[in-house]
């Protein structure tokens, strides 16, 4: 079924058109065109915005603002974003990274959306014309969200405090078995002062590992120290089953990889 594409100079103009039934926003095309190619006829009309502001990366005073159209390749090669580059580099192959956007990643169904896992660990803010929403809240209501995402914002982590791991069967690049992102602040005595852990593929969208976070507080990053967190890691998860791995497998290997991420 043919798609009609409408191009607008500003988000404001496009937001009104996006309210119509059967209309989706076109970012890099790696989700929307893919769905159309697969035979999804629920979309008949596409909307895109050419405002160059959507492709801007701003890093100032420890704060990062990524326009929604910023690509994974742009993040991976940005000199000031080295700490989060591994998460952007984990997405797809080179061609996909030149196309896939920050905004689109927020809507990617599991097993995709590795960068959104990082954004969840970073406690990012999602910006639309309606205002700013914490990424955790946004992910929970994304299916009914109609306002175009214009940017995400977060505090730039240090390379030591941010950790990211993607597990795939195909080397060097493949679809996620799971991905894990962790933001860790250590106290002077070597114990965990604060922690946020996000996981991909452990539900239909990125989720927090709340039980594991709780289990890590005040503990040292040693095999004994992290044991309670690993034992609780799968709590509250509902892993997906797909051709890459079963839900059972994902739940079984999650503590193994979380352990490697924390002890690394």
């Amino acid at each position, binding site marked *: 079924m043919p798609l*009609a*594409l409408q191009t607008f100079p500003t988000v404001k103009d496009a937001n009104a058109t996006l309210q119509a039934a059967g209309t989706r926003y076109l970012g890099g*095309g790696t989700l929307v065109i*893919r769905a159309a190619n697969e035979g999804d006829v629920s979309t008949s009309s596409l909307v895109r915005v050419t405002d160059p502001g959507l492709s801007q990366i701003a890093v100032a005073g420890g704060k990062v603002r990524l326009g929604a159209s910023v690509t994974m390749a742009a993040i991976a090669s940005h000199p000031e974003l080295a700490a989060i580059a591994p998460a952007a580099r984990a997405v797809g*192959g080179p*061609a*996909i990274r030149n196309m896939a956007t920050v905004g689109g990643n927020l809507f990617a169904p599991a097993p995709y959306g590795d960068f959104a896992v990082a954004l969840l660990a970073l406690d990012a803010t999602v910006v639309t014309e309606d205002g700013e929403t914490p990424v955790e809240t946004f992910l929970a209501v994304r299916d009914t969200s109609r306002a175009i995402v214009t940017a995400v914002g977060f505090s730039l982590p240090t390379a030591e405090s941010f950790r990211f791991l993607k597990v795939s069967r195909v080397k*060097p690049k493949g679809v996620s078995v799971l991905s894990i992102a962790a933001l860790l602040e250590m106290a002077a005595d070597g114990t965990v002062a604060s922690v946020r852990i996000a996981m991909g593929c452990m539900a239909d969208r990125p989720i927090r590992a709340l039980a594991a976070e709780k289990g890590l507080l005040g503990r040292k990053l040693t095999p004994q120290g992290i044991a309670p967190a690993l034992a609780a890691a799968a709590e509250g998860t509902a892993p997906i089953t797909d051709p890459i791995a079963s839900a059972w497998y994902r739940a079984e290997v999650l503590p193994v990889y979380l352990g490697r991420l924390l002890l690394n």
Partner: protein
Amino acid sequence: MAKVPVEFTLNGSEKAEFIESGTTLLHALRDKIGDTSPKGGCHQGTCGACSVIIDGELRLSCLTLAETCNGADIKTTAGLAKGGVLHPLQRAFLDAFATQCGFCTPGMMMAAKVLLDRTPNPSRDDVVEALSGNICRCTGYEPIIQAVLLTARANSQNAA
């Protein structure tokens, strides 16, 4: 469905077509313009056979709408050979037996070209990474990796 005009540069020549809105670049190139070098493998962004170079960046033509390419500079594998003389990459693919069924070859060459344009002397890891979005079911990849490294060596010898 309304037709929309598209104009872009394909391998150095100006192209202008009226296409249906929502047509992928892959479809426009193959079925409207007649450049069948990009291949339609999965149409899902997984196989890389449709890879083309748009404004110097590797892209998947199956996931790109043609009308978003207005004014763009597009390069495909059909534009590699000049005046009947094979491009060094094509020569190396032959010499290294990097082509069997040939379906992935145009996409592999586009991915390799972007790499060599930016990194004239890539490491083996650079080549593996650059080709990581392209699937080959025949060769086991090693001859393709060797062909790209061979091209880089030949280029640096010619430059010396």
